[in-house]
């Protein structure tokens, strides 16, 4: 009895995890927990500005600007990888190359882009932490970013490493479209932060 329960869980583990996380997220978003957590983060954000990254970014505008430019370049790498792999899933390009090959190669480029984007993003956030703390659009970007990362590593990658023929083609298309949407949202909200703070 116990064995079959655990195997049931294993065969539904991703669905259950997603269901639990989504429920927790909804509860968090629509309850006072959200506001309370935000209040508790205030000291942390003030501290971020005192870190070496924060001090460097605030003192030398040139450093901040160049890090921001590198952030853009890494975004191009990340976005390029996302566009190529999603376009392949939608059958828009490289249809003569096995989809698995495109996915695997694009994922390598994606990971490099993601690491640089995260590093430069943290650097910049430290420099302007006191300001972005108050911007709703910054928090939406963090939500979109977390969703994107979770989606890629927990859902998309495991799914696409299986045999493509066994996948429902509509599920594949849905994954491709939502992948593009989530990363477009991350980029657009990022740009908006630049406007909202000034």
């Amino acid at each position, binding site marked *: 009895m116990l064995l079959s329960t655990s195997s049931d869980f294993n065969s539904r583990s991703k669905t259950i995890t997603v269901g639990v996380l989504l429920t927790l997220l909804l509860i968090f978003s629509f309850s006072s927990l959200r506001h309370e957590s935000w209040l508790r983060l205030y000291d942390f954000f003030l501290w971020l500005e005192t870190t070496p990254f924060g001090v460097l970014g605030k003192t030398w505008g040139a450093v901040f600007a160049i890090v921001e430019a590198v952030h853009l370049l890494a975004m191009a790498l990340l976005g390029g990888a996302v*566009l190529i792999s999603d376009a392949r899933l939608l059958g828009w390009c*490289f249809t003569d190359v096995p989809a698995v090959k495109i996915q695997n190669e694009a994922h390598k480029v994606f990971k490099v882009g993601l690491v640089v984007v995260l590093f430069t993003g943290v650097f910049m956030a430290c420099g302007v932490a006191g300001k972005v703390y108050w911007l709703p659009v910054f928090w939406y970007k963090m939500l979109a970013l977390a969703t994107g990362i979770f989606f890629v590593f927990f859902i998309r990658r495991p799914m696409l490493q299986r045999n493509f023929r066994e996948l429902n083609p509509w599920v594949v298309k849905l994954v491709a479209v939502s992948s593009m949407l989530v990363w477009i949202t991350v980029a657009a909200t990022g740009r908006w932060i630049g406007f909202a703070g000034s």
Partner: protein
Amino acid sequence: MNEFIYNISMWVDGTSWSAKLHESYYMYNWVESTHVLTLILCLGMLFVIDLRMLGYAFRDVSASSIANRLNIPMLLGFIIMFITGILLFYAVPIRTSQSIWFRFKMVLLVAAAINAFIFHKQMNESVSSWGNDARAPSAVRKGAFLSLAFWSIIVICGRLIAYDWFDCEYTDAGSLSQVLSGCIDGQTQF
């Protein structure tokens, strides 16, 4: 040469749409955002092509396949960036034309275009022999490396246009910075 650029910028600045775009509530921001975000499309494709030539990405996919198919979305992105770039210049012509970063960026754009032309010519002539190799021959790799370098510096210069450290009113008359930026005596303050 500087006088010529200045006169054209003054003329553009005098057009009513230039002021309208510059002072618009959102339009300028949208044009700028489109310009910045489209680089994800344009440079995303370009970087993958260059990385393929250097043998760092998509090594198992034929090089000509990568270059020829990603070219189209890259050019689409470039056209959008070019048009939005012209609009951005059109909105703020004088300061932009006298920005040392903008001038450097334009020079690099021309260099990148020449490099791309040479690179494509070399690639098309020889790709049948090395298209499925993991790395392109050294001449093509040099072109790819230069392309990456040029475009990275172009993006950095583009970002620095917004900063006023080398603006005409903050630098000394007759200094190298002023000569390179094309600051003209008695120019209109904007």
